[in-house]
């Protein structure tokens, strides 16, 4: 009998509570079920009439009922209270929030870091070298003979006849090899200088990343594989590439790597000079003369080296048409990236 009524009252309560919308109805609900004379108390009164055997079971059921009803009531009360409170001190949620400034790294550094992280993943260390270099490290040790036209490839700012502003990051190769025995696997990012007229396409200062790997059995095939892996990660999986013979005094064989122009997808456009290809880096096998200059045995060791410009890469990637933008440091530019 009593257990039937417990179920009934539970259902009754659940039905009533779902209709409660405000404090007034809430108070009505409380009076009806939870007050001294409420329905729940009445059930407890009836417990007295139950048999000795039934009492503990029914008592448990009744306690559970009371707990459930109280809990549900309190939850709803909190909810209604908070709603009413808000309606009293209502705030304009559409007002602007208080924004904090997070700065950003220069776009060139961001691009450089992307390149760095790819090569670090391929087991390369990251090494730096000075910008004010000796003529020997910049040219001589890298197999540029004095009075050789190869020097014309890189217009140089000189400090005097023996010191200059490095024209490429390749002298860091010499510095590493002079200090360490093979194996050497490192990239060398940094700033370089060329005495070239400033225009939208060229600036007298720019950034390069140099790469060097020397060990017992480094091959041209591995050079190709490594650089293709890099290009796929950096420029996208679907690109086509090619390696074209070129000339650098410090590598032999030397090559330049082109990828399909990602602006025209190889059809030919202004950016790729209608060739469909974009040159992204120079590379090659370390010339034996360079090994001789750093006292590496060129019979035992072979190695590859590569170098790429950061500015050009960033120009292409972000659709910037004037290299000078990188060095103007216009705040409106800096904030964009």
């Amino acid at each position: 009998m009593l257990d039937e009524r417990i179920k009934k009252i539970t259902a009754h309560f659940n039905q009533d509570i779902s209709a409660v919308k405000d404090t007034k109805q809430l108070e009505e609900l409380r009076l009806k079920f939870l007050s001294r004379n409420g329905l729940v108390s009445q059930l407890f009164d009836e417990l007295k009439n139950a048999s000795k055997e039934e009492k503990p079971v029914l008592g448990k059921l009744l306690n559970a009922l009371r707990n459930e009803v109280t809990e549900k009531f309190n939850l709803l009360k909190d909810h209604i209270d908070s709603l009413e409170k808000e309606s009293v001190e209502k705030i304009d949620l559409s007002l602007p929030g208080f924004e904090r400034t997070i700065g950003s790294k220069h776009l060139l550094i961001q691009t450089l870091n992307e390149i760095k992280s790819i090569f670090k993943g391929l087991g390369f260390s990251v090494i730096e070298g000075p910008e004010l270099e000796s003529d020997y490290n910049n040219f001589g040790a890298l197999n540029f003979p004095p009075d050789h036209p190869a020097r014309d490839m890189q217009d140089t700012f000189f400090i005097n006849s023996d010191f200059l502003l490095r024209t490429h990051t390749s002298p860091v190769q010499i510095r590493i090899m002079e200090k360490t025995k093979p194996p050497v696997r490192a990239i060398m990012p940094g700033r370089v200088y060329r005495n070239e007229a400033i225009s939208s396409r060229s600036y007298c200062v720019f950034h390069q990343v140099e790469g060097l790997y020397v060990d017992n059995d480094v091959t041209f095939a591995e050079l190709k594989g490594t650089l293709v892996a890099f290009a796929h990660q950096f420029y996208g999986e679907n690109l086509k590439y090619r390696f074209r013979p070129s000339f650098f005094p410090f590598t032999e064989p030397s090559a330049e790597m082109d990828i399909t122009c990602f602006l025209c997808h190889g059809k030919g456009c202004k950016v790729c000079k209608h060739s469909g290809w974009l040159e992204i880096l120079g590379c090659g096998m370390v010339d034996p003369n360079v090994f001789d200059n750093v006292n590496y045995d060129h019979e035992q060791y072979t190695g590859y080296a590569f170098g790429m410009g950061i500015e050009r890469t960033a120009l292409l990637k972000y659709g910037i048409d004037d290299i000078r933008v990188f060095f103007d440091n216009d705040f409106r530019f800096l904030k964009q990236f």
Partner: protein
Amino acid sequence: MKVSLNWLKEYVDLENIPVQEIVHKLTMSGLEVEDYVDENELYKDFIVGYVKEKKKHPNADKLSVCIVNTGTEDLQVICGAPNVETGQKIVFAPIGTIIPNGNFKINKAKIRGVESFGMICSEAELELSNDHSGIMVLTEEVNVGKSIVKELELNDVILEIAITPNRSDALSHIGVAKDLASIFNKEFHLPEYTLHESAKKVKELASVEIVDKINCPRYTAKVVKNITVKDSPDWLKKRLTKIGLRPINNIVDVTNFVMYELGQPLHAFDLDKLNGQKIVVKSTETETVFTTLDSKERKLPKGTLMICDSEKPVAIAGVMGGENSEINNSTKNILIESAHFNPSSIRKTSKALGLSTEASYRFERWVDPSSTLLAAERAAQLIADLGNGEIAHGSLDNYPEKIKEKEVLLRFERVYKILGFQIPKEKILQILKKLGLKIIFESENENRFLVPTFRPDLEREIDLIEEIARIFGYDNIPTISKISISLGEKIDETAFEDAIRDYSCSLGFYEMVNNPLQKEQFASLIGNKIQILNPQSLDMAFLRTSLIPSALGVVAKNINVGEKNLRLFEIGNVFNLKNEKKEIKNFEDFSENQKLIFIVTGKIQDKTWNFPEKYFDFYDLKGYINSLLIKISLDNVLNDSYYHNGDSIFDFYFTKNYEKVEIGVGGKVKKDVLKQFDIQQDVFCFEFDLSKLKKIKANSKKYLEPLKFPKSIRDFAFIFDNSVTYEEVIKFIKKSSSELLKSVNLFDLFESETLGKNKKSMAFSLEYYSEERTLTEEEIEKDFNYLIEKIKTNFSAILRGA
């Protein structure tokens, strides 16, 4: 270098090979075709037209209305050229044709009210020459209605090839042809000519003496007599104009033609102007003034290699001839010079004079010493043919010490070791033979080759391996898909600066990258500047000594464009002489340090609906620096020094020091410094020496268990003399307290008249706790009261609210 495909075909059979493939293969073998013009494409829509009728334009004086017959129809065409006449055969561009010069399309047009259905073209419009004085009038023989590609033989392909400095052999048509023969496995043949010499012996007409045998290993001369200097025939003019040269006369044109054909620069002297009919090759012993054939007087340094006659210099060897021996229209007898000069001697002269010519460009890269005679004979025969001259018998060929062909050993396993791929031996031999190398020794594992003298770049085994790879095709060498990585130590020297960048960004700073080259005025502000020997401009004649000047430059530029609130940082190298009077002789004479600059100006906080505006001040700067140091765990390692009186850059500033060595300095930038940059608002900046900061060992981080016991806070405020600094008070509080005092925070600071003259109030809150137990009220009180009494007596301070 411009190369004509039709010209190349004289030496190698390229029939039926598509232009695209030639371009691709050349590029892929190292002769990069940067651009090319296919005339067959360019001129495909132009036809020969016939001017049937010419009338004056009714509304324009300078225009004519022509009726042009195109072979199939008569079209009305407006023409503005003064030389158009009835009866002419002309080049006609029908509607839809693209005009090469300007790259525009011909449309049906109404010109001053009269319709026009096409265009009559000038040479300039067709890019055949610069002549735009009138239309191009064709000869009678051409057929009306036919394509000009056929009728005018505009069927060449002009390749623009970038020749790398090692490939001097490719600076000519035969050089490129040899590579093509190798690439396509075709036969290569030298130009054919038959030498017709007169009975007169050359030795009776002239003589050659080499004094400087080191700088002139070979000098070959031929003499041609009784020539007539005149215009070159069309075929020769065409050859030259196609590759961008201007025809001059039959003598000069032949020397140019042979240079572009064989790669040997030639010079023709007027033999009658050579004193004693003698050539003497020697280097100058004193500085000499000499007038070159461009009528410029040039000062030649001592040691310049010159071509002289028996009395005077007549040419700067390998660079440019002299005015005094130049060919002119009345020249009758010529001496053709075909020599091999020491590349570095020519390069020195060319550099010293700032004069680079087609000849010097080739000589300084190496001209084949074995072909001087061939080139001289080829030129002599052409000149004799085109100028009705007679070639003297024999040649003057002075070659005291023959330059030998080099021997190079190739071990076949080395090809594999370098390339990682085995190219079959037969293929290797085929490639090298086609490039002109001869086998002088053969075995299973290695071959010895003799390298022709036109390939100075092939000296070592590795050079041969490159040739093999290049002709075999880099793309045919497999790309491996797996690499092995050694487990040795990896280092990242940029990790520290990258961390600094991250923290700087999180403090709201934006990164700059500035040009380290700057003007003297800026480089002079701080340090000992280093000058560039050959600057581009005075604005970039010095290396920066500090990051401050360029950062101020950026601030100024941004304020100018309305960006007045700036928070910027930069990491970059600065350069200083160690001793300003001492020139750089080695790396010890200068420093190159990596620096970090923070620079702020304007507002840190704009006024918003819920915040008042706030301008950057000294304490913001100091706060940024300290926040950064906390992140890199150096906050307790470095200490501060404060300077009220400022220096040449700052009104007032502070430094960060490590063991008494200054690591960083910054403060409020002086007005007169800002004035130099045209900045009118306050600027604060701080420059760290990152090279030094990097080396300081940070406190290693250890886990601290969160506190289990309550903290007790006590506050007090004192009235101090104005001269008492925060730092003194803090130090005193710490000194006068037990280890239970864990931190002190200044939460209020003010001056007011009610406090008295030169007085200030400082209010501190003090935090007491122990990691081991809960403190009793009594022990805290004891500490706190003791401190109060000490402060009172030590600073003569008055406890407020007491």
